[in-house]
Each structure stands twice: as C-alpha cells, then as structure tokens.
C-alpha cells in the first residue's frame, strides 16, 4: 500500500506537471487524463472503490472526452500556446510557492486532529454505504444536483447553439430535443 501510494503519488505529480506545463492543450488534456486515472488509483488504494470507479467514468470517461472533443473541434491545438507575460509568470510562481508553503505548513504543523488516529473501517468505501447516505442524509442535495445537471444541459445547448442557425427554425419541440440530444451526448 505504502509503496503503491508513493509510486502513484510521484506519477500523479508528474502528470499534473505535464498538465500545467505541456505546451499544447491536447497534451495537457492527455496528461490530465493520466492524472485523473492515477487519482482514481489513489482512491482505490484508500478503499474508496466507488469513488475510484466514478472518477474514471465521470472524469476520464466523460468530462475529459468532452474537453478533448472541444480541443479537436475548435482546432485549438495548432501550436504551443504562449504563456502570460513575465510579470504574471513570476508573480504567479511566487504566489503559488507562498501558497504551497502555507498549505504544507498547515498540513504538517497545524492539523487539529492526531494523524493516524482514525480507524478506516471497511465499509467507508462500500458503494452500498455511499449510496445509502446519498439518498438519505443528502437526498436534498442529491435532488438539487440533479436539477443543476438538468439546467446545465439546457444552458449548454443554448450556449453552444450557433446563433446564425436559430435554435428552432419553426420545427417546434422536435428541434429542441434534437439539439439537446447532440449536446447531451457530447456532455455525458
């Protein structure tokens, strides 16, 4: 466990670096897929199987496909993109360093709970347990999230629809469904 943790930890950080510093967006995207995949491994290592699987399905399988899709569709990968001005770069780096330092400081010296005292019982990662909590304690949030996704679908359809081509050229509801399908298929 510890060994795997370290190995995948290093891999995660490396691929995250790839995401940030890869000159081409598509490479960034692929690095990100890697990162996400490794994170899924981490989740699995921590016993959160459900989350791990979900991580791959949702992130790697859906969101990142969407991103890659957009990159390809828009032809954004023509060449390495320039970074911001030097000032931004340096100040960004300094801020990030400061921030990381703060976080590390906080996580190593300021934790308010004794590290390792927690008992990881086996049922924590069990999908059954997660599911139960999800539809009991968090039912309201669950429903809200459902609504949010629904709204997002509509929003995405409206936004991505080409203005020059009206959404509904007199075809009524059918057309809406059609375009919703396209967008939803892209989005799922």
């Amino acid at each position, binding site marked *: 466990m510890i060994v795997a943790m370290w190995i995948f930890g290093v891999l995660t950080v490396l691929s995250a670096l790839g995401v940030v510093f890869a000159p081409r967006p598509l490479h960034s995207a692929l690095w990100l897929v890697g990162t996400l995949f490794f994170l899924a491994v981490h989740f699995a290592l921590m016993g959160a199987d459900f989350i791990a699987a979900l991580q791959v399905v949702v992130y790697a399988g859906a969101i990142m496909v969407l991103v890659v899709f957009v990159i390809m569709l828009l032809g954004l990968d023509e060449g390495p993109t320039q970074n*911001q001005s030097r000032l*931004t770069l340096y*100040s*960004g780096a300094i*801020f990030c360093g*400061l*921030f990381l330092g*703060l976080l590390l*400081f*906080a996580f190593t010296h*300021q934790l308010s709970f004794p590290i390792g005292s927690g008992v990881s019982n086996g049922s924590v990662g069990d999908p059954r347990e997660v599911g139960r909590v999800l539809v009991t304690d968090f039912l309201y949030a669950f429903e809200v999230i459902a609504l949010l996704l629904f709204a997002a679908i509509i929003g995405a359809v409206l936004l991505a629809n080409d203005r020059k081509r009206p959404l509904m050229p007199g075809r009524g509801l059918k057309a809406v469904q059609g375009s919703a399908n396209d967008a939803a298929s892209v989005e799922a």
Partner: protein
Amino acid sequence: MNILGSTLTGQVTENLLLVLIPLFPLVGAALLGVAVGIREDRRWQAGWAATLFAVCSFVVTVKLFLGIGDAQEAFRYTAWRWFESGQLSVALALRMDRLAGVMTLVVTGVGSLIHLYAIGYMHEDESRPRFFCYLNLFLFAMLLLVLGENLLVMFVGWEGVGLCSYLLIGFWYREMPNADAGQKAFVVNRIGDAGFLLGIFVLFWNLGTVSFPELQGLVGQLPPYLAETAALLLFVGAVGKSAQIPLFVWLPDAMAGPTPVSALIHAATMVTAGVYMVTRLGALYVLAPTALAVIAVVGTATALLAATIALAQNDIKKVLAYSTVSQLGYMFMALGAAAFSNGIYHVVTHAFFKACLFMAAGSVIVGCHHEQDMRHYGGLRKSMPLTFLAYLAATYAITGLPFGAGFFSKDAILWAVYSHEIVLFGTPINRVLWGVGLFTAFLTAFYMTRSLMMTFFGEYRGHEHPHESPWTMTTPILILAVPSLAFGFLFGEEFLHFLAAWGREDLNVGHAVLAENATYHLLEMISMGIAVAGVALAAFIYGLQPRLVDSLLRAAAVCRGVHRALLNKWWIDELYDALIVAPLRKVSAVLFSVLDRALIDGTVNGTALFMAANGEIVRRMHTGRVSSYAMVLFAGTIAAIIFWIVL
C-alpha cells in the same frame, strides 16, 4: 325685512322641480355632445333642440318663481353629499330664493332668446351641434352658479361658466387669436377664482361652513378684519369674472367668439356673476365697509376707463364690449354703496339692453357679411329696419334717456352712491365717485349714440350689399327691445321692492325720505341732462358734422394723442404684458434653464461626473483579462489565509 343683517328664519321647501332647471340644459348639452358628428343635413335640429331645453328650463323657472313667497323663503334641493372632510361637509344642493329666482329668470329667459337668435346666426356654421352643446352647457353652469346652495356649488358654476366661456370664445379655434382670447379669458378668470378660493377658506375656517344660509346667519361673529379680508378676497373673484380693473382685459378680447356668445355670456349673464355673488354674500359685505369702498372705487374706475376706451373703438363689438365693462363698473358702484338690489336691478336691465344691442350688432354683422368695422357701415336703417329699431331702443335704454330701462337703474345707482357714506382711508369719496359716474354716463351716451349714428345713419360705406336678418334673429332682438325700453318704467319699483331684502332701506323706491328728497330729484334732472347732452353731442358730430372728428384730430396734437391712447385702450394690454406676462416668462425661462438645468441638474450631473472620473482611475485596474483577476483573487486568498494563520 332686510335679511342682510339678520338670521334666516324663512320657510325652506325641498322641491324636486328645482333640479330640473339646470338639468334641462345639462341633458341638452349631453345629447348635443353625443350628436356632434351628425349628418350635415340634420344639424339644423341642434339649435332647435338646444333652444327647446333652454325654454323648458325657463318654463320651470317661471313656475317656481311664481311660488316664491317672502324674502326668507326658498326652494331647496339637495342632490347628494358631495364631499366631506373633518368639519367640512359640502352638499351638491340648489337653493332658490328671490334673488336667485330673479337671476334664474334672466339667465333662462334671455338665454332662451339668445338660443333662438343663435339658430339664425349660426345657420351656416358646420359645427352647430358643438356650439349649441357649449351653449347649453354654459346655461347649466350659470344656473348652478346662481342656484348654488353653498359657496362650493357656486364655485362649480363659477368655474363652469369660465370653461364654457373659454370654449365658446375659442369656438372658431382655427384662427389662433380666437384661441388666444379664450385662453386669456380662462386664465384671467382663474386669477379671480384663486382669490375666490381663498375667500372661501377664510370663511370656512372661521365659520365652519360654506352654505349660504348658514353663512348669512354666522357672519356677524366674524371679527371685522376677517370680514374685510374675506370680502376682499371674494371680490377678487368678482373682479375676474365681472371684468373689473385690473382684470377686465379679457372681456374685449372675448368678442372673438360668435356674437350670440358675446350677448349671452359676455353681456347678459356670466359677467354679472360677480355682482350676483357679492349680493349673495351681502350680509358679509355690509360688515366690511372698507371692502365696499374698494368695490365702489374699482367699479367707478372701471366704468370710466372702459367708457373712455369705448369712445374711440371702431369695431362695433368692441364698443359694446367696453360698454359692458363700463356698465359692470356701474353695478359695482352700486354694490360699493351697499345698494345690492340696485346692482341687481342694473344687472337685469343691462341684460335686456346689452343682449339686445349685441344681438342687433350681430344682425348687422351678418347683414354686412361679417364686417365689424363701423367705418364700413352707415345708413343701415333702410336696409335692416327691424334691427335698427331694436338697436335704437336699446341705445335709448343704455344712454339713460328718460324712461328707458337704463335711466331708472343707472340713476338709482348714482343716487345710491351719492347718498351713501363711502369712506376710503378716512376720506369720504362718495361725491367724487358720483361725479365720475355722472361723467361716465355722459360718455356712455356719447359713444352709444356714436355707434348708432355710424351704423345706421349717413351713407352706406361698405361694399357688399347689406340685408335684413331672418326672423329667428330679429324676433329675439325685438322681444328684448321691449323690456329695454319699458322694464324700468313698468316694473322698476316692483322689482326693487321684490328684492328689498337685499337693498338699503333708505333707497326703497317709494320710501318717504326718498320721495321728498329734493336733492334726489335734482340729481335725477342732472343725469337726465347729461344723457341728453351726450346723445345730442354725438348726434351732432356723427350725424351732421362727420368730418369734425377728423379735422379735430388733424388740428391738435393733444387730440391725436388722446385718440391714439383711447384707440389702443390706454395700452393696458401692453402694460400687463410688459409688467406681468413678460417678466413671468422670463422668470420661468430662468427657472428652467438656470435653476433646474444648470443648478440642480448641474449638481447632480457634476456628482455623477466626479464619480465617473474616479471610476476612470479605478477602471485601469480592470484589464478585462481573466488571469489578472485570478491573480488578484488568489493574492487575496493568500492574504486571507495568512491573516487567519497569524491570528
């Protein structure tokens, strides 16, 4: 029997018929209003319908009038509680006592005749229904004014007649001067109305009521200075409505309206509303001697001023208009001498002869194809004999030649002034006023005869062929000519007796003191002589020596100057324009451009600009680039974390 000083104790009878009097014209107005757009070939009916309603109203009035008992008795009709607030409670109520009855008779009677006359006068006009609608509406408002049970109902009529006057003066609105004249009339009237309102306020806040009978009983409790204030404020209203100095300027302009309108509104009825109102509140006015003095002075001055202007006018209607103003001045002289019934007497006789004069003038105007300048008349007695007869009779009456209607009423006024102690600023002025009144009588005789001569005698100086008017026009004129001549002679004494409650005790005709008073008879002689002199002089100049005036004007610069001044009405319009209207315009413009736009808006916009300038500085921080925002956001987060850790 004088009710001016006493509380009312008479019988008040509720009578539903009373409401019919104003209702007939109102219904007529409404019907005609709806029918404004009827077909051309049906429009002739409008005049007849309106006349019918007016006559109905007259008939009801006669019926009621005959039922009025003694001075304290009255008919009353309360429609509904109009509004009430706190102690104020106003009913839409009508009340007819002797005074109101007389006025109602004049309004409906003369009004009916003028309606009839208007049928002929307006028979070519395409908007006759509208005209008769207005005319009926006017009748309604005037009747409200006269019959109002309280100050507010009177005020309704007061403003209502102003509105109708506005509408009728501007009846031919396509000519801008007509519209201007109407507006001028309304606005000037409104000045008076404002005073009237304030007067109401004074009375209400101190007596707690606006109802005439109640007021009559309560005015005695008013402290003198308040009585004076209220009386003067209300008089301002009368000044506006009855065209006295300084608010008389609208009346001559009002001649822009059709002639029946001039006859009805601006001679016979509306303009006398002021007189009626003062009489109605006579109980108040007798408590306010200073106010009465002011009234007398204003009336006298107006009479003189208007008469002088009338001397030089060439427009026949203008002559009559100034004559009306002058005669109204007489009426106010009477009021100023507390001889209210004499004022009303003159109102009635004036209604007869001035309506007759106006209608006759209208007949002449129609006959001469809408020519109003007397210099283009002449010798019309041959071509329109009936009109001539009527005009002659009316002129006879107004000039104050013996036994005409004007003779009795005017003399009574002069005597009232002479015999009454009118004190202003500690000085008794009644003799002066009398003298001026007498001189005015002379002028009146002169200019009226002048107009008669210029119109009906001599050679015809116009171009179009004159013709006599149709019977609808001549009949009313002739009918009115009769009382113009005979009213005073036949009914004068009875009339004054009838209204004795509103008159001075010592002036009652038949009063022992009066009958034996040598001065009274002397003065009668003098005024008779003056009238004859005026008539004779005018007849001489304009009948026998038509060139005399011209040569006089050519000869003497003074004469020319005077003539110019008279012709231009003493430049009073111009004076008002320069002193009031123009500065007001200037002030408004300055208020708008300087105060409103520059100062207030300047401050507001200046603040906004200041803010905008600040924003301009802050703006540069907003590059519109997400990353710089993100950077700032992130820096802020870090600062927050540090803050949190440090604390």
